[in-house]
């Protein structure tokens, strides 16, 4: 039990570093796919440190509170997950964190930020069923909602719930804010909504959002790792392949309309998820 708390603390310290490095590598690979040289690996850290040096110009002070709550809950989500906690609690803490982010965007009256917030809500609705079904699927396999039990399960979870895995991959693009689902905000200048959700965040507020995003990336990769927990080597390779796949998809697709994003996410989750869970159900009873 103590060991688990230590891994949680290690997550809190290392996740921003790993997440930032992943973001830096992401930018280099993206640049190469677009035929550019791209920024140095440490560029995300330079960016964030510059953001913290800037004068804080907040439109409304409540925004600051929401964004701090967002990072706290994201960090809590990850720490809970890595210390082997209850996966359902992890999922709901993640949702709560995003609700704070959306509230932060709503706090300013900019139309871009409000539309971005509305779209983020829609994305949340598209994302939620998939991750909950994944948690349920993992429970059906390992008979436990606790991450530490799932991770010590002897067997390839991916082989038992591949449908859920693909449903999760589909919504993973939304969480990484990449094309074709970079609808609420994205890392590039955004033609429809400028920076969407984060339009009115600036200086340290934006910096905090960015660090929270790194925490989230590491947490989500950790979640994907659960599918491959039976063999750490395969697990790490799978994570790298999946992330490269996400970058590739980002580079070969245009942005879709939000209605299509929601519809397709629900249909894929419903079909793949329910079929998969149904099969599991009959297999284990």
């Amino acid at each position, binding site marked *: 039990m103590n060991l688990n708390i230590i891994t949680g603390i290690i997550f809190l310290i290392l996740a921003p570093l790993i997440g930032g490095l992943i973001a830096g590598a992401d930018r280099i690979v993206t640049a190469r796919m677009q035929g550019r040289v791209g920024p140095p690996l440490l560029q995300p850290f330079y960016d964030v440190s510059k953001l913290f040096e800037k004068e804080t110009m907040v439109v409304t002070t409540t925004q600051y509170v929401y964004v701090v709550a967002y990072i706290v809950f994201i960090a809590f989500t990850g720490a809970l997950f890595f210390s082997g906690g209850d996966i359902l609690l992890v999922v709901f803490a993640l949702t709560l964190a995003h609700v704070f982010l959306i509230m932060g965007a709503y706090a300013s009256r900019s139309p871009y930020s409000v539309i971005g917030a509305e779209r983020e809500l829609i994305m949340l609705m598209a994302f939620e069923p998939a991750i909950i079904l994944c948690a349920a699927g993992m429970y059906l396999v390992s008979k436990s909602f606790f991450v530490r039990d799932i991770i010590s399960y002897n067997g390839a979870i991916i082989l038992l719930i591949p449908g859920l895995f693909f449903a999760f991959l589909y919504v993973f693009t939304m969480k990484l804010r990449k094309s074709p689902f970079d609808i609420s905000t994205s890392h590039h200048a955004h033609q429809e909504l400028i920076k969407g959700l984060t339009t009115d965040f600036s200086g340290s507020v934006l910096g905090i959002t960015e660090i929270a995003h790194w925490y989230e990336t590491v947490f989500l990769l950790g979640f994907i790792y659960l599918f491959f927990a039976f063999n750490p080597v395969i697990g790490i390779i799978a994570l790298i392949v999946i992330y490269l796949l996400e970058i590739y998809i980002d580079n070969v697709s245009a942005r*879709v309309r939000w209605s299509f994003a929601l519809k397709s996410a629900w249909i894929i989750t419903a079909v793949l998820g329910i079929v998969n869970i149904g099969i599991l159900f009959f297999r284990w009873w």
Partner: protein
Amino acid sequence: MSKQVVIPFGPQHPVLPEPLHLDLVLEDEKVVDAIPTIGYVHRGLEKLVEKREYPQYVYIAERICGICSFIHGMTYCQGIEGIMNLEIPKRADYLRTIWSEYSRMHSHLLWLGLFADAMGFESLFMNAWRLREHILDDLEATTGGRVIQGSCKVGGVRRDISSEKLDEMASGLDSMQGELHDLVNVFLRDSSVRHRLKGTGILSKDDAYLQGAVGPTIRASGHSYDTRKIGYAAYGDLSFEPVVASAGDSYARCEVRAKEMFTSIDIVKQAVKKIPDGPIDMKVTGAPDGEYFARSEQPRGEVIHYIKGNGTKFLARHRVRTPTLANITPLVTILKGCELADVPIIVLSIDPCIGCAER
């Protein structure tokens, strides 16, 4: 009837760095009316004819627009030559044609890139601009300027291209054609792109004609109208067919521009084969007295330079009707009835250049 709200679009909007303001009257998410306003960047360039001698004014005419600068300069020179009844050397006509087509390719590639960016397709945007770089390099090597060429003058052109360089340019375009095909393929075939473009902003054939649409905007609505067919410069000696599409939607306008680049490559290759030897300019003496409407086809459509001289070195009037000014009325028409989310794409699909619309 539901309540109407007015949403302002521009003059600053991330989709186009051009100061065009539209008051969009909305019923729910539908646009029922759009009222355009320009006039944020009026520079009074036409007024400057009273302050600069007519041969020097070429450099101002070129600066009306940054993208179609060469064709502006050329049309102005054609206007002066029209008044003074000058027959410029054939080689100069061919060189003007080659540079015009290079300008068209570079403008279309720029537009395709921006259009891809509007759809959130960054890598397509980067690739379009990477190809544009080949065109700009050739322009730089032959005229000395990448965007503002400054190679046209009254009575001819200012620089010659050696025959080796001409062959090199033609073979360069040949090797670029393969990559260009791949690029255009994405625009015309990719399902995520078609999903955004098909059926948005339809301009009917009659509307396009009566509202004075020009360039790719009218050609995408089924009219085979291309000012190059008048045969100015060397176009009369070269064979080409205007690219026409019939659907009249954003996809058709994208298609026309994409396919026009191949027509341009073909025209350049024909011109390189046929270009005669000889002088590239002639001595121009005296001053223009009279008036002339010079027309030519820009990447965005037909441009009119009206020039009125009064027998002195300073012109009495120079008036430019740029293609964007003519395309504003069709834009207003196609915006009616579209979804708010499609407005940026539709506005971009006519390739607006407000800076040159206002001069």
